[in-house]
Structures are given as structure tokens and as C-alpha cells.
């Protein structure tokens, strides 16, 4: 069989195509090698298997901290009146907003307002309709979450009455 007769231009085109194929392969290898290295670090940061039925809610409540938040709020939802209420954060809004949101989510269909006590008492989410209860979020307290009957909507009064008071 005679040897293949390449025109120089054809040879250059073929060589370029081969080089471009190899470049794509090289790119893929570089990506996978880099990600393989990163993956080891990422997998080490994954949380362990959670026994709680509400691990995602628990993460958002971790500033209290509160574990098994679904069980806590299931019990609260059975006892609280169906009227609206207020979550009082004895801390900054930035630290406790996610905990308030989980509380509001789990207490549906009640309207749930939000008061942050620091740096100054302020209504972050205004109450709608009558208020029949309050939930105090107190990080660091022996009972970080307490619920009780209350009709007050004044932020100053709500923050002055700490859990165990009123």
C-alpha cells in the first residue's frame, strides 16, 4: 500500500485538529483533577447523619441553640390559640431572624409578628389582627424558648418582660 500523500496544508489542518482535541481532553483532566482535590476538603465539612426530623430548621435555630425544633413546635402548636402572636427576640434581629422565621413557618396558619430587643426594642414584623400569645427567644438562657399568653404589642413592654417575668 502506498504511503498516504499529505498536502502540507492538509497536514497542518489535521495537526491543528488533533491539537485542539488534545486541548479539550487536557481541559477536562485539569477540571477533574482540581475538583477531585477540592472534593476531599468539601466532604470533610459535611454534617453527620442527623437523628432530628428537622435538621434544616434546627440549623436555622442554632443561635438559641434548639435541637428537634419540629417536636418543640408541634407541642407548641397544639397548645397555642389560633389567633396571632409575637416572637420576641432577646438579642439582635440579625442573630435571631432565622429562628423567628422557623417559628412562624411551624406555627402556620397563625400570623406571627417579630420584635427584636437589641440594640433597641423594635417591631421588625408588625402584628396583624389580635395578639394572643408571645414566644420569647433567649439565647444562653436555661430555657431558650418559652411561650405564654400575652396581648401586648408594645415592643418596649415586650422586651422589658423577660422570660419568667410578666
Amino acid at each position, binding site marked *: 500500500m502506498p504511503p498516504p500523500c499529505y498536502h502540507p496544508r492538509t497536514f497542518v489542518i489535521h495537526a491543528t485538529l488533533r491539537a485542539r*482535541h488534545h*486541548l479539550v481532553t487536557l481541559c477536562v483532566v*485539569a*477540571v*477533574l483533577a482540581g475538583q477531585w482535590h477540592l472534593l476531599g476538603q468539601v*466532604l470533610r465539612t459535611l*454534617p453527620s447523619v442527623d437523628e432530628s426530623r428537622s435538621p*434544616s430548621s434546627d440549623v436555622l435555630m442554632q443561635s438559641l441553640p434548639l435541637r428537634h425544633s419540629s417536636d418543640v413546635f408541634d407541642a407548641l402548636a397544639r397548645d397555642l390559640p389560633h389567633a396571632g402572636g409575637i416572637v420576641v427576640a432577646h438579642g439582635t434581629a440579625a442573630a435571631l431572624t*432565622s429562628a423567628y422565621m422557623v417559628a412562624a413557618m411551624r406555627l402556620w396558619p397563625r400570623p406571627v409578628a417579630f420584635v427584636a430587643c437589641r440594640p433597641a426594642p423594635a417591631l421588625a414584623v408588625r402584628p*396583624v389582627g389580635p395578639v394572643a400569645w408571645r414566644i420569647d427567644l433567649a439565647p444562653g438562657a436555661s430555657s431558650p424558648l418559652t411561650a405564654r399568653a400575652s396581648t401586648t404589642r408594645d415592643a418596649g413592654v415586650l422586651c422589658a418582660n423577660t422570660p419568667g417575668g410578666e
Partner: protein
Amino acid sequence: MVSDGGVALAVGSAWAMGAGATALLWPRHVALPLSAHVALSGLLGPLFIGALLLASGAGSRPPAFTRVAVTTAAAACVLAGTLARRASPGSMTSRPAAIAAALVLGASICFTTWVTTRTHLGYDGTVVWYQKARIIADAGGAMPSAYLADATRAWSAPDYPLHVPLALAWVRLWQDREDERAVKVVPAGWLAAMLCLTFAAITERRGGGSRARALALAGVVTLATAPRLLVGEGSVTSGYADGPYAGVLACAVWLAWRSTWGADHRWHALLAVLLGALVFTKQEGVAATAVVLLVCAVRGGVRHIGFGVPALALAAGWSLWTIQHDAAVVMAYAWPGVRAVLLRVPVILGAYAAEVLTVQVWGVLWPALACAAAACPARGSGPAWTMVAGVIASGMAAFTCSAWPDLASHLAVTVPRQLIQVAPVAVILALSGNHARSDD
């Protein structure tokens, strides 16, 4: 332990519904590869089951009736799809190669599913999407107008579309006892579908063959091991909407390309459903739909973009319905003035550049994709890349009108998620190069 049987039935019926719908929507005389069928089943199944759930919930039926009715509808859809494709061409693949590819694909799906079981729903995944899912499940499939009008829940974005909440609510409806861990099967399914889609699209665009399959599997493994896609807020394994949005966007761009930018009307039904899924998943789906339609109009002519009308009507209808029910509209955007817009442009461009070069979470994915795409550009892929660029540009443009007190915070939260949304389609396009199909 969760109520495994119920959750498995929920997921199985959703995927079965998707399989039936895909069989009906895929062009009758075009071969439907198994990987594409599985991908579309996972992407469209939760959408259709959610739509049925919503329709069933509107009748205020008890949950048991809803479960039986929706599952029966899914079974009917599978039957109709099977009958419809009896005479359709099959997908020819040599057995050993198919088995090897299936093994790699299966291992990737197992790995990402395992990671999904170890991550949380995330911030928005919990208080925005899962909250809506709980409320919908509690109402037997309906979205109560009391939720939309509840001013104390305005922070949960009541006017966001319902694709993700409905999919999660369907699983929640089958649980005897609420368990947040169980609903993670939904994002795991979307991610599995996205991996199958990547394999199907790259293999098809490269015209088949061993190198096509090898590069398709490389694309699958790339997505399955990308740290930014796997962990963190907005990741595909979390409960955010960016995962399904990314999968549906990639599928829409692939099939728009395959339909020769809408000129082949056999694809219109499927494209219409995919664009509908985009707008029913995230609000920015409207912008993505507009970009897809614009590119198709420029390439194929305005007369070929009728498939976008249902999606735009759906978006408009949903917005009007939420406004009618007094849903609070919490806009993160407002016009700041021409000078502020101009001053923000370099900051925004810098944030995107910094994100794509963040090696700790992306590795060298973006520079390598750019290099691969430039080295071996796929023939006829220009409009598809224009769609990707248009989607990114629309996101950038939105930031110029950010109403957040601190633009840097807004960028830090949102830019990674926007890149997650386009990562699968970018991988597909970058690895589809050189061997374009003869019909392009």
C-alpha cells in the same frame, strides 16, 4: 426513620408521570434515547405532578383522595405515553458501551444522592420553599389565599412561583409524620435528571461514538463533583430552586438548538413545556424565556417562536393571581438613577469575574470550559452561547437596580447561584464541540 414507602411512591409516581409526558411530547418520529427519557422524566415529572396537585387541591378534596387521583393520572399518562411511542424508532447503542456508560452515570448519581442526604435545605430552601410546601400540603394541594395576604409572612416571598413548593408538597402529602430529611429526595432527583441530561445532550450533539460518550461522561463527572454545585446555600443538593432551574434551562437550550432554533415545529410542544417550567420555577425564568425566544426569532424568524406564548401567559397569569389575592411584592430592585447604574457596572463585572475565578469552590471549571469551547467550538452553537450570555447579562443588568442597602452583599448572595444556573448548559455546550450533527 421516615415513612419510606409513601415517599418512594410519591417520587416514583412523579417520575412515572414525567416518563409518560415525555413519551407524549417528544417528536413521534425522532428516536428517544433512554438517558434523555430519564432526564426529562425527572425534570418534567415533578412539574406535572405539581400541576395536578394544584388542580386537585382547588377542589378541596381530602389528602387521601388527592393521592389516589394524582397517582391514577400519572399511571394513565404512562399508559398513554407507552401507546403513543409503540411505533417510534428506538435508540441504537452497542451493549458493552451502554453498560459502561450506565455504570459511570449510576455511580455519579449515587454519589450526588449521598451528598444530598448529608446536606440541609438551606435558608431559602427552608423558610421560602419548604414553608410553601408545608402550607400547600396542609391545604391538600391548594395555595391558600390567606398565606398570600398574610403581611407577617411577606419575607417568605409569597409571589414566587410554585414549581418547587408543589414538588416538595407532593412528597410531604405522602408522609405519615413530617420529616424534613425525606423531602431531600426531590433535589436528589433533579440532580440525577440533570446528570442524565448532560450525558444525553453531549452524546447527541457529538453524533454518538466512543469519544462522544467519553466526553459526555466527563461532563457528567464534572458536574457531579463540582463543589459549588454540591454544597452551600443555593447548591443543587439544597432545597433552593436553582437546581431544577439549571436543569430545565440546559434542556431548553439543548432542544432549542436541536429544533434549529424553533424552525422544526415538531419540538414546539416540548419547548413550550420547558419554558413554562422555567417561569414556574423562578421569576427570572421570564427573562430567560425572553432571551431564548429572542435568539430563536433572530435565527429562525418570528413566526417560529409561538412556543413561548404559553410560558409568558403562565407568568402573567400567576402574577395577576397573586396581585388579586393581595400578595406582598417584596422587590429587591428599584431604579437608582443613571449615575448610580454606571457606577455599579464595574463592581458587578468584578463580582462575576471574582466568582468564576474562586478556585476553592469552582476549581478551574470556568477557565477550562472557556478554553475547551474556544479550542473546539461546536458548529452552529453560536446562538446557544448567545442564550447563555443573555441569561447572565440579564442577571447582571438586574444588579444595577439592586435595592439592597449593600450591593456587595446582594452580589455575594446571588452571583454564585446565577452561575450554578448556567453551569450545566455551559458544560454541555463546551463539550459538544467539533462533531456537529449533519442537520445543523
